[in-house]
């Protein structure tokens, strides 16, 4: 168990979650699909804004580590807002709503939402 890949004996009795592998429970929120798409995420984002800003800053720091000139982030902030309107609704309007509530530049919220496809790069 002390050499990679650190395979353990099959764990038992881990539930209910406890101990060092359990960091914490997860909060519940309601997303009302009857609201306009731009308003649906207001409650979640109002609560999580600070963590979201921190996470996006971490990605920006990483991008700057690769491209110190800051050009990569500029590209994200200039190009991806142009792309948001090509995304299908309701996703496009929901992403705009998240950017408005969080204050995070729209391009960076778009990047977060298409990250799975971008990550393959």
């Amino acid at each position, binding site marked *: 168990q002390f050499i990679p890949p650190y*395979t353990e*004996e099959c*764990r038992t009795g881990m539930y209910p979650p406890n101990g060092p592998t359990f960091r914490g429970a997860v909060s519940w929120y309601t997303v009302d*699909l009857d609201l306009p798409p731009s308003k649906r995420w207001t409650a979640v984002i109002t609560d999580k804004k600070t963590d979201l800003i921190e*996470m996006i800053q971490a990605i920006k720091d990483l991008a700057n*580590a690769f491209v110190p000139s800051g050009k990569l982030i500029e590209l994200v902030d200039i190009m991806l807002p142009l792309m948001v309107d090509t995304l299908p609704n309701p996703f496009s309007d929901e992403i705009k709503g998240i950017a408005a509530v969080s204050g995070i530049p729209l391009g960076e919220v778009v990047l977060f939402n298409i990250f*799975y496809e971008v990550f393959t790069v």
Partner: protein
Amino acid sequence: CTSVVAEDNKGNLVHGRNLDFGLFMGWDVKNKSWIISEKLKPLVVNLDFKRNNQTVFKSTNFAGYVGMLTGIKPHIFTLTMNERFSLDGGYIGILEWILGQRDGMWMSFLTRSVLENANSYEEAKTRLAQTKLLAPAYFILGGNQTGQGCIITRSRLLSIDILEIDLKLGRWYVLETNYDHWKEPFFLDDRRTPAKKCMNQTTQTNISLKTIYDVLSTKPVLNKLTTYTTLMQVSEGSLESYIRDCPNPCMPW
């Protein structure tokens, strides 16, 4: 990621998943952890999507991400998605999108649309298998009847393979990490073998949400990339999730 759908010997279907993310996106030497994985953990939320004040589906998500990676349509189906690596990957889909070819779907928008609009396991399976994507993926789908559990291996354009639970063959669960099930996993990242060993050791008689949590808590199925574990039971319509840590020694992936 690791996703598993299992049928116990009373015909109940349970679905569990570890969401692993942040590989090679900055290693924090002091804390021995991935920077982005740690930044994602506080963003984990459980969401109840409602229309006319009725629950349409529930999901575990990262705040700010409008697509879906983990979800349940209560009493109808459960769905998770794992990443699939391919040279014909998402960057080609993005390029096509920028060049104006927009008949493909962004992966997590497809899962969100299926959770929101599909009304049966078969309908969900058809849509996940046949909709053109911008990036390859694995979709792990559970239903509400015996035998309804499958792994859909997708390229961007095709459904390459669908592996289903088959009790007659003794296949009472299907389990996916990040490699095609008919191939050996990458030798430096074999989470499949230990996960399957623990599932087989648990046996169909004892499989439940609790024991799936045990399997998903066993290193290296639990690793430094694991941000959360979600457990779903379609017959109960229940979804519960837990933010995870992997104390040292622990595999970085």
